[in-house]
């Protein structure tokens, strides 16, 4: 290949010797000595003359019996196995590095003598390209101790003389007359000349090789000092290629002798090529390039092709080189064996240790590395084989099949884990209702604590007491309820104690009733009696007719009704969750439509619920009211609170009325009559009573606290129409009475009296008292010592507050025995128990203006 019109076949007379290893045998390729370059004799150090060129007798001893083309397989000594040795002492490499730096000046000093030889050495490359290297067997020229002995251990291919010698050298070295001292026979042998293909391959390998460290020139120059060591010189040729990376990656270290060709080769990727001419050492190098022999021609394209895949010289130097796809069929890697200088070799080895881009480099690795590499190779091969095996089944499934399988898998996955995206949505609630709501109630896993609980959670969370199973359900709920009731009674008692006398005196002292008016309840000018209660009272009369038999009840339909109630409730709760936001304005017709639609559905559901409750059903002759029958079931009782939440105020009132009207027909009233001395109800009934107290009474209690006096009086009137004796003798009945009476007292103290409603209240109260009085001694459960009578004292207190002095007296007379018994018993009890008993009694005593202290 010719650059700038120079004859590439001619050795470069100027550039020779600069850092390039000389090839003393180059001239044998057929190129004559031009004579216009350096005179070989001028620069030749004469060392070669000391050789006995004719004495080949011991070549076999020295080099082993290898020869000719078979030389490729010839094992050589390992004396020069610097790499192999240094690899074993990797730790020492750094030291060697330093040592190299120190040796470098020394090497440079030797350079002048070496140069002529090197220039002479460069003529041989063209022959390589023309495959004219049919050299004699190597043994003929091998030195006694070349240092290559160690390489005999390496794979055969690795033992070949590096083809790069010829591949690169021609480009860079001036034609120097071949050293005359070398016999023709030794020259070819020393070369181990390769075929053109090999040369090319080696060029490629070089191109891929990691760049050499900087400052190669001293090294290369140093290499030439011993011309008689042909092998040495031979492999020095490879050096010119080494600096190529620095040459383009680092201008400062551009190598004068041989950098140029490399630069040219790498121009496609390197901008340094343009800068190269400015380098002081550049001119001779360029010169060399011009005279580059033809073999470089095939090389160049290769370089160009490979450049893109190369890392920069710097990166490569750092060991970052990792070319994944080295071209197949590389010949041996040229570099390492041919180092003339030990330190340089080490450097190179150091690099190559890190880079295994090609099997050929294997030989340069230590045993362990080799093993590791082979291991990796094996793995990769195994994987490839596996892939190959599997690829036989490619295409068996159509994309549709795959989609189908994927769908099934996803379905299972979603079913198993629940889609995190649809937590709280209807789908997940349908499938995973318990878990979702439970989690929301427990709050443990709430993802957005700031968000309010959804309706479901609220539904179950606010079922007071009922969601705590087991013991807690039986204790906490009623306790809570009873406490509140007690508090209410106590408040009424306190209020009655504080004010009453004054008021009464005023009232009694005056000739007429003095009604106070205040802002809250102004004195009514018109007092129209409301008929609310009248309508309610009409219904009980129909219920009255029922004889209390359970025989006529249709259990199945009742249970079905309850289930209907529940399913409707659940639908309503579902529906509540979908309540549309209120319309923003008149214009928002869509929103208004939605609201209207929602309301329609809600009303329909409400109606359905109401129907399912069978409130308006007529009881069968001889049976109890269907609604009361529903309440006899546990789940019927439990539904009450939820029903109240979804019922209108009117509906709630009706339910309350209905319950009160049928109070003496409730199973928890009729079946739980107290009998002195035998208070032990059966367990089922006790549980029923508890449940009713928790589920129904507390609901009614809450509702009743919103009622005004008229309704309370009406309710009381209803109670009076029933069998008071039965009612009062049951815990539920007594609690109901307490509830009603205490509510009235609260209203009384908070709002003062309004004549009309109080008249009706007083009438109802008086009626109740009259009815109740005979039963009073018998409403206590069990004996005095059983101590389960707190609710009775509450009732008595509630009665006592509203009682007139006369009634109070009668009240005291009626329960005097019980009071005295309890007080006496309290004296024998431990302090805390007795205090509790006395407190119960005192609740009643204070309501009538007395105190147990007076009795002790």
């Amino acid at each position: 290949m010719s650059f700038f019109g120079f004859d590439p076949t001619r050795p470069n007379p100027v550039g020779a010797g600069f850092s390039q290893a000389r090839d003393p045998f180059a001239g044998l390729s057929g190129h004559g000595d031009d004579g216009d370059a350096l005179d070989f004799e001028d620069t030749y150090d004469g060392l070669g003359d000391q050789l006995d060129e004719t004495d080949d007798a011991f070549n076999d001893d020295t080099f082993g019996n290898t020869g000719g083309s078979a030389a490729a397989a010839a094992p050589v000594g390992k004396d020069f196995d610097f790499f192999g040795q240094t690899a074993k002492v990797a730790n020492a490499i750094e030291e060697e590095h330093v040592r190299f730096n120190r040796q470098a000046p020394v090497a440079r000093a030797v350079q002048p003598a070496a140069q002529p030889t090197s220039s002479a050495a460069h003529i041989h490359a063209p022959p390589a390209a023309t495959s004219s290297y049919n050299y004699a067997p190597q043994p003929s020229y091998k030195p006694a101790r070349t240092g290559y002995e160690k390489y005999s251990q390496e794979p055969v291919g690795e033992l070949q003389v590096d083809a790069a010698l010829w591949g690169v050298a021609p480009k860079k070295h001036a034609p120097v007359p071949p050293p005359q001292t070398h016999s023709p026979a030794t020259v070819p042998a020393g070369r181990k000349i390769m075929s053109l293909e090999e040369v090319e391959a080696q060029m490629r390998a070089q191109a891929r090789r990691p760049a050499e460290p900087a400052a190669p020139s001293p090294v290369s120059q140093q290499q030439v000092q011993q011309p008689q060591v042909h092998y040495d010189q031979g492999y020095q040729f490879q050096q010119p290629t080494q600096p190529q990376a620095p040459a383009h990656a680092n201008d400062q270290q551009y190598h004068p002798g041989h950098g140029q060709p490399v630069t040219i080769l790498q121009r496609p990727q390197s901008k340094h090529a343009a800068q190269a001419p400015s380098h002081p050492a550049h001119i001779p190098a360029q010169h060399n390039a011009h005279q580059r022999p033809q073999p470089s021609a095939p090389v160049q394209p290769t370089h160009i092709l490979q450049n893109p895949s190369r890392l920069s010289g710097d990166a490569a130097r750092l060991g970052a080189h990792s070319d994944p796809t080295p071209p197949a069929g590389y010949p041996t890697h040229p570099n390492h064996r041919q180092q003339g200088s030990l330190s340089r070799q080490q450097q190179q080895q150091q690099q190559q240790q890190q880079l295994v881009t090609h099997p050929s480099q294997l030989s340069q690795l230590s045993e362990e590395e080799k093993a590791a590499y082979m291991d990796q190779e094996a793995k990769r091969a195994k994987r490839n084989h596996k892939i190959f095996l599997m690829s036989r089944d490619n295409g068996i499934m159509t994309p549709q099949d795959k989609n189908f399988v994927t769908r099934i898998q996803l379905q299972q996955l979603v079913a198993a884990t629940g889609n995190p995206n649809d937590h709280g949505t209807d789908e997940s609630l349908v499938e995973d209702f318990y878990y979702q709501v439970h989690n929301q109630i427990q709050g443990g896993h709430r993802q957005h604590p700031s968000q309010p609980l959804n309706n479901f959670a609220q539904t179950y969370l606010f079922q007071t007491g009922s969601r705590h199973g087991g013991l807690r359900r039986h204790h906490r709920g009623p306790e809570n309820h009873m406490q509140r009731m007690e508090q209410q009674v106590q408040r009424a008692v306190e209020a009655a104690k504080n004010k009453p006398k004054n008021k009464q005196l005023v009232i009694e002292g005056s000739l007429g009733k003095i009604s106070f008016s205040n802002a809250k309840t102004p004195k009514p000018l018109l007092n129209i009696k409301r008929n609310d209660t009248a309508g309610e009272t009409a219904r009980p009369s129909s219920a009255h007719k029922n004889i209390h038999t359970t025989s006529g009840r249709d259990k199945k339909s009742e249970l079905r009704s309850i289930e209907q109630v529940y399913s409707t409730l659940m639908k309503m709760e579902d529906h509540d969750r979908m309540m549309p936001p209120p319309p923003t304005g008149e214009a928002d017709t869509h929103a208004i439509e939605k609201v209207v639609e929602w309301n329609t559905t809600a009303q329909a559901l409400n109606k359905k619920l109401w129907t399912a409750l069978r409130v308006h059903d007529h009881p069968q002759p001889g049976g109890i009211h269907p609604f009361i029958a529903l309440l006899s079931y546990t789940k019927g009782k439990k539904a009450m609170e939820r029903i109240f939440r979804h019922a209108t105020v009117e509906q709630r009132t009706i339910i309350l009325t209905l319950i009160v009207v049928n109070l003496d027909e409730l199973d928890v009233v009729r079946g739980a009559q107290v009998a002195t001395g035998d208070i032990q109800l059966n367990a089922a009934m006790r549980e029923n009573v508890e449940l009713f107290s928790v589920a129904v009474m507390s609901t009614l209690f809450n509702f009743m606290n919103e009622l005004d006096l008229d309704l309370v009086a009406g309710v009381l009137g209803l109670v009076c129409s029933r069998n008071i004796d039965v009612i009062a003798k049951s815990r539920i009945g007594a609690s109901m009475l307490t509830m009603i009476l205490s509510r009235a007292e609260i209203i009384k103290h908070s709002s003062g009296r309004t004549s009309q409603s109080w008249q009706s209240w007083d009438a109802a109260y008086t009626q109740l008292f009259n009815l109740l009085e005979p039963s009073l001694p018998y409403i206590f459960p069990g004996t005095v010592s059983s101590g389960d009578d707190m609710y009775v004292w509450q009732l008595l207190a509630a009665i006592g507050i509203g009682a007139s002095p006369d009634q109070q007296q009668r009240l005291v007379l009626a329960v005097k025995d019980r009071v005295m018994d309890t007080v006496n018993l309290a004296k024998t009890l431990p302090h805390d128990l007795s205090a509790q008993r006395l407190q119960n009694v005192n609740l009643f005593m204070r309501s009538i203006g007395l105190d147990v202290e007076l009795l002790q």
Partner: protein
Amino acid sequence: MLFFSFFKTLIDQEVTVELKNDIQIRGILKSVDQYLNIKLEDISVVEELKYPHLSAVKNVFIRGSVVRYVHLPAGAVDIPLLEDATRREAANQAGKAK
């Protein structure tokens, strides 16, 4: 899915699993899946003398099909909610059957 849904709420609660071979294992419920396979940790066998080979076992994975009973911690069961969940499940099943 009701049972799966239910057992998920019992995770980290102590349960006693009675197997069809009469072994009763008490432990902390760690995981349950749609087959009601159960993973228990910190287990102890109720009749340890009878099944000494399990005394060294600290956690178990029980295939759902070999479970006869699971004894639940009553306090961890929300009965009204469970009742409603059951109703919903029944409604779902009825809906699917149609």
